[in-house]
């Protein structure tokens, strides 16, 4: 079987939009609410989750035939926790400012449902390469939603993107104001709802 066969491409691309872990499977909502106030932490968070879910999928898939059935969740959790700790330590050593910004959320990747969901549903039953692609696809799918939500929230709550001012002062002089509601977690949920609405309106076959 070739590395980029139709099935493998499907494994990689489907979670990015048609079977997105956040909008279709409604996983990882908690962190999607927490780290999307600003674009930069959302990007780093998306990247961290992508790396961790891809590598964890790969490791668990390699081990899948040796893992005792009764402690498989614990084994998966240990793999994820070890990876998260390593990523967090590496960020502290080489990207100190970003790690300060993300504070507790890096550690909380352990509790991200996407990870356990993919490990249990996919990596335990598929080969290493497919699992790695599945992890990348789901990570990117998660990151994409985070970035879209963070883009809207930062733009309307602070008038900036990645910390750079994009709404010029003359607009404010005309009476435009930043929307403080965008800072609140519920607005992330409302935006997420809008994305799901858009996705389902575009693809009627997704509706039950």
């Amino acid at each position, binding site marked *: 079987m070739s590395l980029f066969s139709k099935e493998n491409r499907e494994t990689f691309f489907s979670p990015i939009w048609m079977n997105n872990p956040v909008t279709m499977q409604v996983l990882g909502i908690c962190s999607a609410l927490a780290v999307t*106030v600003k674009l930069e932490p959302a990007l780093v968070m998306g990247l961290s989750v992508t790396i961790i879910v891809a590598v964890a999928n790969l490791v668990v898939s390699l081990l899948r035939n040796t893992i*005792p*059935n009764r402690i498989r969740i614990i*084994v998966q959790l240990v793999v994820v926790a070890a990876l998260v700790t390593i990523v967090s330590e590496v960020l*502290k050593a080489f990207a100190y400012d970003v790690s300060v910004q993300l504070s507790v959320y890096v550690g909380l990747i352990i509790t991200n449902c996407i990870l356990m969901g993919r490990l249990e549903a996919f990596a335990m039953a598929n080969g290493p390469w497919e699992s790695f692609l599945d992890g990348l696809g789901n990570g990117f799918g998660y990151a994409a939603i985070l970035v879209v939500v963070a883009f809207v929230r930062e733009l309307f709550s602070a008038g900036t993107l990645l910390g750079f001012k994009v709404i010029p002062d003359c607009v404010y002089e005309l009476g435009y104001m930043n929307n403080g509601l965008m*800072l609140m977690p519920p607005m992330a949920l409302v935006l997420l709802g809008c994305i799901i609405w858009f996705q389902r309106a575009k693809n009627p076959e997704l509706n039950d």
Partner: protein
Amino acid sequence: MNTNSNTYTIVYASVMVVIVAFLLAFVSSSLKDKQNENVELDKKKQILSALNVNMEGADVAQLYSEIVKQEPLLSADGAIKAETGAFAIDSKIENAKPLEQRNLPLFVCQIEGATKYVLPVYGAGLWGPIWGYIALNDDKSTIYGVYFSHAGETPGLGAEIAAEPFQSQFTASPKHITRNGEFTSIAIVKPSKVDESRDYVNGISGGTITSQGVDAMLKDGLGQYVNFLKQ
């Protein structure tokens, strides 16, 4: 092999835990020096930031050694306990001790020929610790600059204490932590409220508990130095 037997499960779990433990210990110890360096550099940046020093593209460690002249430890009665050691003090540990036993760190700095005193403060916000550095002019009352940071306050709300609009209020007009020779601290009030009894700045809308935390932190943190401030 029967992967469901008890022996297999126990051996598997033990081997896995040992491997992971070694891996994490290795990662942690090999990155330790680099991380400590970052933490120290970050602390120096925070202190210089309270002194309104422009660090753009500068060598922070060198700038720090040029500006900070002395790092003595004080006791609560204002006397100098030790000539050095302020930099290594962990405010969290010191705050757990009774006031008489605390080592109070002081940073004596020189900016353009004038002496500035930097006092660290440490307190609690809504979600976790908050801390800061307060730079005073040599009258030991007028605020020259401030720096605040936090471990996990809500972005956009409590976390705004670390942002420029909040901190610039402390220097926009002269603020004094004493009035008529008595220590009053600086009040953090709800926006549009006033505090006649002492100098005040506006708190963060939507970050009330964090703002109250800053208020208490300034009162307690600077209050420890009350005897030094009177000297």
